[in-house]
């Protein structure tokens, strides 16, 4: 599904190498988690994959189902099936949440050569998905993320994911700023989307999210590289002993 090979990334404006050779394969139907200390390059990886400005790929490749992601515009990556749930969802005053979602969905369908969804069908789809995330009609009408609490913003990310139904979902620190109840809602939303055709990459600093979203594979990232890969037990080890031991042991 997602195939990253020897990915090297530096900041565009600065001579600072962030990713120093990342190799990663996420298969369809699997949930991979990336854990790592602050500054290890986890979020940079998600930004580079989604096509954010400010980074320069100096070496390596990233492909989604064989298609070169790095050659695509952000909107093309989205249409190809890549979705990034943002660590800090952006507030967009003046753009209604519904308008935003319908515009996004139809833009993706158009790019893929599919027909636009009708207003009625869209309404049915969004009501259905919103209800399970406890997002009410009022929230759907408000401008995108404006005045949303931290938990509401993250739920809104998962709603977008559910409506857009991507093939490959990247969740960047989705647990940050969430209380236990909100985390459970978000995790339930993610788990509902798990299926054989979809891959997940869950980026997190703490293990607690992984209690709710059970990963198949756990990677530890440090200083721009994946230094260790294992099963769910690796996350528990981190929770118990912190990152220092693992980083030390590899170095």
């Amino acid at each position, binding site marked *: 599904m997602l195939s990253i090979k020897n990915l090297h990334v530096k900041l565009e404006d600065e001579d600072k190498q962030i990713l120093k050779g990342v190799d990663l394969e996420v298969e369809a139907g699997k949930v991979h988690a990336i854990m790592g200390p602050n500054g290890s390059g986890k979020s940079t990886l998600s930004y580079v994959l989604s096509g*954010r*400005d400010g980074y320069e790929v100096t070496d390596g490749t990233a492909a989604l189902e064989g298609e070169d992601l790095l050659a695509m515009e952000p909107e093309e990556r989205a249409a190809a099936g890549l979705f990034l749930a943002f660590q800090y969802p952006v507030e967009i005053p003046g753009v209604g949440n519904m308008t935003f979602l319908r515009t996004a969905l139809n833009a993706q369908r158009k790019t893929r050569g599919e027909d636009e969804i009708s207003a009625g069908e869209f309404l049915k789809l969004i009501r259905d998905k919103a209800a399970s995330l406890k997002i009410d009609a009022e929230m759907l009408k408000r401008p995108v993320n404006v005045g949303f609490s931290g938990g509401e913003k993250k739920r809104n990310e998962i709603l977008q994911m559910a409506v857009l139904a991507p093939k490959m979902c990247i969740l960047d620190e989705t647990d940050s700023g969430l209380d236990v109840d909100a985390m459970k809602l978000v995790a339930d939303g993610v788990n509902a989307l798990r299926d054989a055709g979809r891959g997940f990459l869950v980026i997190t600093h703490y293990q607690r999210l992984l209690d709710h979203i059970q990963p198949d594979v756990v990677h530890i990232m440090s200083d721009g590289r994946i230094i260790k890969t294992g099963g769910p037990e690796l996350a528990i080890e981190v929770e118990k002993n912190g990152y220092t031991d693992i980083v030390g042991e590899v170095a």
Partner: protein
Amino acid sequence: MAVAQPKQDLTETRLATLDLPQGAGWAREAREAALARVRDMGLPTRRDEYWKYTDPASLTQPAPPRAALFEATDEAPLFSEIDRLRIVFVDGVFDPDQSDDLSLAGVEIERLSDALNKDIHWARDVFGTLEAAGQTPVARPLAALSTAFATDGLVIRATGMAAKPISFVYLHRSETSDAMLHHVVRVEEGAELTILENGPAAARFMKTMEISVADRGAFHHIRAQGRDHERRAATHMFARLGEESAYKSFTLTVNGILTRNEHVIELTGDDAIAHVAGAAMGDGKTIACHHDDTVFVTHDAVNCESRQVFKKVLRNGAEGVFQGKILVKPGAQKTDGYQISQALLLDEEASFQAKPELEIYADDVKCSHGSTTGAIDETALFYLRARGVPRETATDLLVLAFIDEAIQEIEDAGLQDEIRTRLQLWLERRRRG
């Protein structure tokens, strides 16, 4: 102060092309007084402080530069869906054949020339009077020019609740037309009137509207200037507001080589409100584009509220100007004055100049003003793109969101939507190239 020779020459050259129209004695006097004001002030040049950011040369030269006709065939004309009394002007001349009958419950409507021929007419108290009052402290010679020479326009008196909006449609049929209109409006005590304006009007369009709103009267004005990309226009709205009266005006401006819209509003009765808003979009890609909103609000009564909300989106060398002033006279306590002007510049070539001013001579007032110039929010743009919305569509969404605050100043939700739809269609057309 004597008018400098070059300004005097410019003025006399322009005046030589114009004839003072006939009319009743009072009207003739008003026109002659206006002509004297024009000579006294002289026509504007770039050297005048008030025209520092906008070059009036094409507005003052004897004949207007040619402007191509613009025929919109791909969409219904603006306000088509609105139940209204439609009054058509072709190149600045009233066209009775294309217009509805000038009869509307709650309103009296006459042509300017008819009203000014009558020996006794209520318009005497308004025609040229509000314009003259609006000449201090800042000279507006182009408005005086229209008082002196405009032969057409409408004289409207609302005596009750107008049954529907009056819609002025300005058609442009000649590439060299030079139109000058003067409308006079009186909203009587407790009466209510809405005026809609749209259409290219002429190659050069000078228009003055004087509006007197009596106590507890309400005047609404929604105007759209667009699609006629080669126009040169200077418009003036002079309003005088009585007690507990309301004046609300919104203008949408899209492109145009030169557009200068002035509002001069005097709050003379206690508890009156005046809201002036403008949304402008300029793209200088194929034809130059310059918008200027110049607003002067005078608070001369207690507990009045004024609001100025102006938004401009500019690209490809389009230029925007905002000059807005709130003057609070001695004794105008409890004034609530607000002013915001914001520009979104979509590239490095576009520019925005703002001159916000407050002048306050009362001590118990609340006045604030702000002006911002910014680029598109890259973070929001990326967020939209990351969800699959192409860059151009995402930019348009953000542009519409930015400008919507000005549109929300329109009280009527249906008219808000009408304006929104226009902008959307314009942006889509622009994207198609």
